[in-house]
């Protein structure tokens, strides 16, 4: 039984990056994840504007003249033959989401703690799957989400989101 496992596997739900939205009045962006298992759900995460930019570049597969920070991380991993197995948003504390990047090299697995924005920037560049734990889904701050969704309804009738799902 799962009970005997010292670190019981969390139940995970797969998500994909849907888009990155500008938050007009602040220097932040909203990263919107979309649930993949048939249940409709949008999972917004507020991130910094530089972090949002890094994700947008990967989403739009924009080629930059020089490697951006997460391209460099990817390049390190290619040199060292390390692959990203998956990214899991597995915890939320004080409205901050925590991500874990699962790495593998010749059968040696390692995990690295990261902000969701860095983990997702890397996942997009390495085509690694992204999951949110059911625990996080249950504990997310829905008050925040509902006010955001209300705003989205107003916005979507007036303005196109700047990054469309491709």
């Amino acid at each position: 039984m799962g009970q005997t496992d010292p670190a019981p596997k969390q139940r995970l739900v797969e998500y994909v990056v849907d888009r990155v939205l500008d938050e007009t009045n602040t220097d932040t962006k909203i990263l919107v994840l979309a649930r993949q298992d048939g249940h409709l759900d949008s999972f917004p995460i507020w991130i910094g504007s530089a972090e949002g930019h890094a994700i947008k570049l990967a989403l739009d597969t924009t080629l930059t003249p020089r490697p951006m920070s997460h391209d460099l991380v990817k390049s390190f991993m290619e040199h060292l033959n390390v692959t990203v197995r998956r990214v899991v948003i597995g915890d939320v504390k004080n409205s901050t989401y925590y991500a874990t990047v699962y790495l593998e090299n010749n059968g040696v697995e390692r995990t690295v703690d990261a902000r969701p924005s860095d983990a997702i920037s890397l996942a997009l560049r390495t085509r690694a799957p992204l999951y949110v734990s059911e625990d996080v889904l249950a504990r997310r701050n829905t008050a925040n989400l509902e006010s955001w969704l209300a705003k989205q309804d107003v916005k979507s009738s007036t303005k196109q989101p700047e990054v469309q799902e491709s």
Partner: protein
Amino acid sequence: MITQMHLKGLMFDPYNNAYIVVLRDEDGHEMLPIWVGKAEAGAISMALENVAPPRPMTHDFMKSILDAYDAKVISVVITDLNENTYFAKIHLMYQDSEYTVDARPSDAIALALRSNAPVFAKESVLNKQSSEELEQWLENLKPEDFGKLDS
């Protein structure tokens, strides 16, 4: 030939709305200004000031990945600076082999600071970057343009 450079300071360039990382050699003969964006300047400044952020920033994350597999940053070399395209090489040691990875100088410096690795500049870069340009530029600066890191 390469020359070891030290981080002298980080300043705001109001004319270009960018930041300048100023590298200087041991005897202060050579100065190398590198223009970087706001996020990149932030990453360098946090390492310079030894600020421990509540969550790992991008270059902390980068270092965690290298640490996870015991890969070490041996050195960083600034190899070329053109108008818009800056080049650096990061030298890594991993399982007794050396790897050279292409990077922007801002990423390379942010990572070198976190890894206590030395930063070098190629002689051709130092020669190309005339210090006249920097001096002229510095003359136009007001004291408030200088970040608190500059002495």
